[in-house]
């Protein structure tokens, strides 16, 4: 276990040292995955269906705020829709706007989640998301997750009807719209997934925040169970026909990721190196503040001094814990073990003959670590 903690410390040290490069790199990779997925899946507009353009857009995202990824992803998908049919693009714009105005307004910083959710849905591993977000993010992120699921459903419907729509003329615009809206309203499975995700994430979040022992373990376990149960109930009610083998396998993956996050929880606390500037009357300060690596709970130790041995004599009468009864001389009138200051005169020995010395720490000093390893 200690070896693992050493590795964690090393990883965190590297992270804090190079986070100025690591964070943009992660953003670049995420943005590229999102844009590439949109292009390969939709790909109706050849001009932007190009790795060079994906790379340029991802590079832009790497140093701009993370919300830009979502804006560019939305623009990519709208351009593809536009090439398919102008009315579909208009519908897409309206749906995106409604999602933004009504919901995403409350969680503007979680916009990355909206972009990532459809990709995970496509890879068939979205069930890790509520667990991870419940562990690292606030309850407001549920909204972003729901928006991501709905956006995925919308894009999927467009994709599956693209062949039909490509043959339609512009005069059939109303029919195109009807086709998509009908399917969107009929896809109850989508709402079920949103509900299951929101419930799971809130359960994980609130259990994690409870002031009890093992709250993280309980949160991860309960989250997985709640997710499977809610999806099962949803499947029974709505008859969505989702694959439960997949859900269980992904849930196992979610547990593994959850424990990795628990192990690194100080890293995902969004502590990062801060470069700040300020001044007072005498100086300008250019300060680089690097977060300290905390070992967390695992360093808590309880020192137990003079633990009783088997068969030790208790000073108190009437013990029921299996210790021997107190010999008569200890409480008979002749016994006077106390000096004139009221201290017990035992010359550094306990009743059972164990030497504890002047420092109060005997030979049987034990250190009990409270690790929940």
């Amino acid at each position, binding site marked *: 276990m200690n070896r693992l903690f050493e590795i964690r410390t090393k990883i965190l040290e590297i992270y804090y040292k190079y986070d100025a490069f690591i964070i943009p790199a992660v953003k670049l990779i995420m943005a590229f995955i999102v844009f590439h997925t949109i292009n390969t899946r939709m790909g109706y507009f050849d001009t932007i269906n190009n790795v060079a353009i994906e790379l340029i857009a991802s590079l832009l995202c790497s140093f701009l705020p993370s919300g830009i990824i979502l804006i560019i992803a939305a623009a990519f998908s709208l351009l593809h829709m536009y090439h398919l049919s102008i009315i579909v693009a208009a*519908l897409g714009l*309206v749906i995106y*706007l*409604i999602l933004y*105005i*009504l919901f995403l*307004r*409350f969680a503007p910083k979680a916009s990355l989640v909206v972009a990532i959710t459809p990709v995970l849905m496509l890879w068939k591993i979205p069930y890790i998301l509520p667990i991870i977000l419940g562990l690292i993010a606030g309850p407001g992120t549920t909204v972003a997750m729901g928006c991501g699921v709905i956006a995925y459903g919308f894009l999927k419907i467009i994709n599956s009807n693209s062949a039909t729509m490509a043959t339609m003329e512009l005069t059939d615009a*109303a029919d195109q*719209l*009807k086709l998509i*809206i009908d399917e969107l309203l009929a896809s109850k499975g989508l709402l079920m997934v949103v509900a299951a995700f929101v419930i799971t994430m809130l359960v994980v979040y609130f259990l994690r925040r409870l002031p009890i022992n093992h709250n993280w373990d309980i949160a991860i376990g309960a989250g997985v169970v709640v997710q499977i149960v809610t999806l099962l109930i949803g499947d029974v009610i709505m008859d969505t026909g989702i694959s439960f083998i997949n859900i269980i396998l992904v849930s196992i993956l979610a547990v593994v990721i959850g424990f990795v996050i628990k192990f690194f929880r100080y890293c995902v606390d969004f502590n990062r190196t*801060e470069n*700040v*500037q*300020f001044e*007072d*009357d005498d*100086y300008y*300060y250019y*300060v680089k*503040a690097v977060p300290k690596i905390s070992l967390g709970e695992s360093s808590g130790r309880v020192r137990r001094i003079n633990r009783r041995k088997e068969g030790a004599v208790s000073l108190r009468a009437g013990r029921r814990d299996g210790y021997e009864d107190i010999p008569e001389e200890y409480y008979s009138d002749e016994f006077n073990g106390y000096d004139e200051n009221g201290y017990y005169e035992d010359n550094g020995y306990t009743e059972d003959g164990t030497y504890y010395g002047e420092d109060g720490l005997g030979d049987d000093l034990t250190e009990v670590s409270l690790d929940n390893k």
Partner: protein
Amino acid sequence: MLNREKVILMTRMASYENGKGKENLRIGTYFRSDYIFSSIIKAIFAVTISFVFGLGLYIYYNFEEFLANIYEMDLLALFQSFWKYYLIVLIIYVAISYVIAFIRYMLAVRNIRKYKSNLKKIRKLQKKQ
């Protein structure tokens, strides 16, 4: 002379001002009632705009039907039913916005209080020097 304690405090506050503090301090410039009122107004706008979009989609979706039956339809009853849906959505959404605004304001005020006490500490340290 550089004062260690002061530099630490000032660094903390500068990083707060750059991050979470920016939004908190903006919220702190309002009275509570004003902040909540403004967020409710925004919520009403949001619902209204979304509803107009939704209505537009609905009418476009049923456009042919509308055109065919425009003279026989009971337009008043139709608008009344729209109005009812609008009000239900509005009330739910405004209630949620109210709760969120309330919590946000409370948290912001709590953080600003800490920030101000740190400011006082710095002022004291400055006087000592």
